[in-house]
């Protein structure tokens, strides 16, 4: 860790500690948590998850004098062991072997699959060169994927922070310092403003609660709570400083059971040149797709942050947000070789994570006429780099938005006196400087629908979640039912069915070899998105949890 950062962290911690002193009394610690087993079975594959989790949550109130109050020390510890890598080691883990790239998504029928090798499962167990090239990103070893919380970043400490509040005039200053999640926005499943923490998609693609898959960061959140004034019923100003080392989204390493758009295997593959290739040095060679992962240097200048102003005005609650951070999805930068038109011999792309500036806002409004709550959330970013055939990427402004509606409906015909929840939302993305060779559509939308009911005093709850990606023509349907026999036990049984993922996209390398037809690899993974690429991941899912 650079000295500058370390010094500033220490100073900050000292300043907060000094402000909180003298500590008069430490009260009893409240502990709670759960133990859980999640067992999923994938059609045609067998066991896809046998995840065992223990999570402990603590809160310790601390009595103080000197102006600070509501002072608490908070922690969330999590230990996970996923036994699928031992119980179904032919399909997942370091011994898994794939016949071709994209084997669990599309048939082996294109030139692209002849040019690209299958991904190497868990590269750091099987391929030193790939492991070295992917160092700092997808470089997990066999134990890292079995015990994902026990990594170098000590993710078993999911959260550990101190909360404190003091009055400043009529306002309240609230400080939260430590490893934490900061949630912005009002959207389920997708993230428009909720960009502070990266996400671990290797846990269960996009389908787990974000609370469980956000990657907590060491941050300082300062809020000035101004309460009501003559115009607003509530007003709050928040500053977030993420002084942690940058971490990208975890998209799942090749060999893991869940890999967002199968990027992990693409990054762990090679492009092969035939023995009779006319250029010396290239003939018969295998060039790794990824040469290096260029992570932002951990310096003060590279720390991330944002500000938010939010309030309540009449029937509307709103926020205005701005953030400066690093793109959490990887951007691949093409590395040309000495021979025009051919990549560098030691790797085709470097992975970069460019700087992004975001401005946006959100609002929700209760409308009496429809007796529904309407949500709108939107963000405009600059600096993002999106996939493109030429050079691997292009920087472009992006507009994202969500329009959502939540409504509770009594449906006596369904035999429940509890209202059913209907929640629908449309997530839109508009790429401002779109190019024809970008595999993502200039404008795309994903619609989601949640319909949930309650029976037996809410202890039995069926629900169905449907998500449809318009351009990918891909759909996920997830019906489930949960049962709580008492305060401790929860059983959830469900299905997760996906359809689609049939889109292809032209690839210049195939075209250069005489095949101009659309290809599966490597670009169509972005066209089909996380739902389409997971089209062969139909699962039966059983989760049993004991809370305490």
């Amino acid at each position, binding site marked *: 860790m650079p000295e500058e950062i370390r010094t500033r962290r220490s100073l900050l911690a000292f300043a907060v500690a000094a402000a909180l002193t003298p500590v008069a009394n430490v009260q009893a610690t409240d502990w*709670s*948590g*759960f133990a859980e087993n999640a067992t999923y079975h994938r059609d045609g594959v067998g066991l896809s998850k046998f995840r065992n989790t223990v999570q402990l949550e603590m809160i310790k109130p601390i009595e103080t004098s000197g102006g600070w109050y509501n002072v608490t020390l*908070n922690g*969330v510890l999590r230990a996970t062991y996923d036994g699928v890598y031992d119980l179904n080691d032919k399909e997942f883990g370091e011994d898994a072997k794939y016949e071709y790239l994209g084997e669990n998504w599309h048939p082996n029928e294109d030139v692209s699959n002849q040019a690209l090798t299958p991904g190497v499962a868990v590269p750091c167990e099987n391929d030193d060169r790939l492991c070295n090239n992917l160092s700092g990103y997808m470089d997990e070893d066999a134990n890292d994927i079995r015990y994902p919380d026990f990594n170098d970043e000590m993710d078993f400490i999911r*959260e550990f922070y101190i909360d404190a*509040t003091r009055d400043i005039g009529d306002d*309240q200053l*609230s400080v939260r310092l430590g490893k934490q*999640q900061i*949630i912005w*926005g*009002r959207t*389920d499943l997708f993230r428009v403003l909720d960009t502070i923490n990266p996400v671990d998609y290797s846990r269960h693609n996009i389908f787990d*609660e*974000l*609370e469980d898959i956000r990657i907590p960061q060491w941050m300082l959140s300062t*809020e000035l*709570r101004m*309460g*009501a*004034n*003559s*115009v*607003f*019923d*509530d007003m*709050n100003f928040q500053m977030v400083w993420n002084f942690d080392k940058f971490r990208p989204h975890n998209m799942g390493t090749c060999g893991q059971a869940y890999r967002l758009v199968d990027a992990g295997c693409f990054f762990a593959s090679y492009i092969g040149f035939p023995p009779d290739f006319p250029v010396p040095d290239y003939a018969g060679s295998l060039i790794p797709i990824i040469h290096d992962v260029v992570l932002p240097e951990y310096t003060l200048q590279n720390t991330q942050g944002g500000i938010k102003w*939010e309030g*309540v005005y*009449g*029937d509307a*609650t709103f926020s205005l947000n701005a953030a400066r951070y690093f793109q959490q999805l990887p951007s691949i930068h093409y590395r040309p070789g000495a021979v025009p038109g051919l990549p560098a011999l030691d790797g085709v792309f470097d992975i970069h994570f460019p700087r992004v500036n975001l401005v946006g806002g959100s609002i*929700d*409004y*209760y409308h*009496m006429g429809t*007796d*529904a*709550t309407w949500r709108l959330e939107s963000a405009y970013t600059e600096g993002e780099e999106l996939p493109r055939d030429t050079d691997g990427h292009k920087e472009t402004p992006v507009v994202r938005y969500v329009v959502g509606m*939540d*409504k*509770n*409906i*009594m449906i*006596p015909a369904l035999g429940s*006196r*509890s*209202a059913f929840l209907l929640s629908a939302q449309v997530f839109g993305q508009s790429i401002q400087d779109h190019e024809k060779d970008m595999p993502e559509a200039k404008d795309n939308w994903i619609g989601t629908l949640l319909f949930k009911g*309650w029976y037996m*005093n*809410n*202890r039995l709850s069926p629900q169905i979640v449907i998500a449809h990606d318009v351009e990918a023509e891909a759909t996920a349907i997830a019906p489930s039912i949960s049962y*709580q026999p*008492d*305060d*401790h036990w*929860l059983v959830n049984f469900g299905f997760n069915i996906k359809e689609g993922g049939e889109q292809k996209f032209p690839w210049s390398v195939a075209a250069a070899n005489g095949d101009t037809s659309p290809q599966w690899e490597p670009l169509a993974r972005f066209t089909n998105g996380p739902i389409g690429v997971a089209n062969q991941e139909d699962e039966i899912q059983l989760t049993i949890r004991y*809370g*305490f």
Partner: protein
Amino acid sequence: MRKQLLSIAAGLMGVTLTAQAALPESVIQESFFPYKNGGPDVAEIKPGMAINAGNVDQFVAYLDPATYMFIKRGDYEITVGETTSFDLHESYVEATRQFAGQAKLGARTGEIDAPGAGRPFPQEPSLDDPRAGEKLAWNYKFGYNWGDSAAIKPFYWKMRDMESGKVERTFKMNFNFLNFARRTAQDPHPEIQPNPSALFRATYVQVLEPFDVKNTQLLVQKFQDDLKNDNAYLYLGFQRRVRRLSSGQTTDAFLGTDIMIEDFEGYNGRISDMKWTYKGTQWMLSPMYNHNDMPLAKEHQEDDGYQFIDFVGKGGCFPNITWQLRKTHVLWSEPVDPNHPVGRREHYIDAQTFIIPRNITYDRNGSMWKSWTIGQSHPDHHLPINKGTGVAIDDSFSMVDIQANHCTTGQFKGIVDPKLSPASKFTVQQLRAAGR
């Protein structure tokens, strides 16, 4: 013509002057101090006597239909307590003296012009008054209730199978209440400023246990304009987000219990959501008592020694308390919305305090659905901090779903202390701050 206009103006002034005239002190005395000359003279009901399946038929005139049914079936047995005066805080009585003469109903149900504070219609209700029911509803809504602010900390709710007595779920929560307007006792009064949306009252709920709903928080804001729907916000711990609730959710089972948000405190909806009918005033047995004199529960004992009301009877669904004879207004409310799950509620309003200790809910088919008991303790026989507050302390509840043979019971530790309920606790930001 000019003369005519003057005459009309003078006439209007006369009406106004009449409406604003101070009420006779006898109205105040009858409304707030019905027991100053002692309790009712009902020979057949004496303190200490037990009413059970064997003798309940003798007392049917003093019991609401649901309580009668439970006792007749042997589900519950009650002991009669002495009738005591639950004097409300003097500041509220004084506000009534000052302002009650000015209160006027608007043209539509839910409209009222009632400046100041206090009980808007302290006059005895009349069966001949077609809007008497509405006036009683306003007296309840603008009642002293928990005073200007209070907390229930903690508050245990248990979901029980009435047949087996099995406790299915236990929720531990904190509740806070704050009146933004019509305040009389706690500073500032009569209204907290700034109050740009003209809030009338807010309720904040924080769930502490069990784990699966821990950190769930609810904020309900009621407006001074009764025609406006409440604003309700829900923070779900597992989403860490504040969600707005549609009003449909206020008629939904709160956390799966037998209680709707609309049921809170007897009735938590808008006056304008119901058609109100006054059905008469009578002496009835009501669940009102002195907490410290009750046989208290051993479970959930607090560090300060406070013990909660115990539950007995079929399924453990009924509070182990004494019931006293009280002057009671019978009020019916029928939802205006034909899709509302409730067909009718019968409210048995305590005439002195205007709290609602007994409610019976009927479904859309007219069948008895739920029985809602909110036991009230005299504040001078509860926690020391509550002495002299003039608040009838909500102290125990039982909501029995008669059709489902299921109940939810509640054990309160009610604290009237303004320090526990500052205005900052009733904001959307508080939900985020108190969550993770």
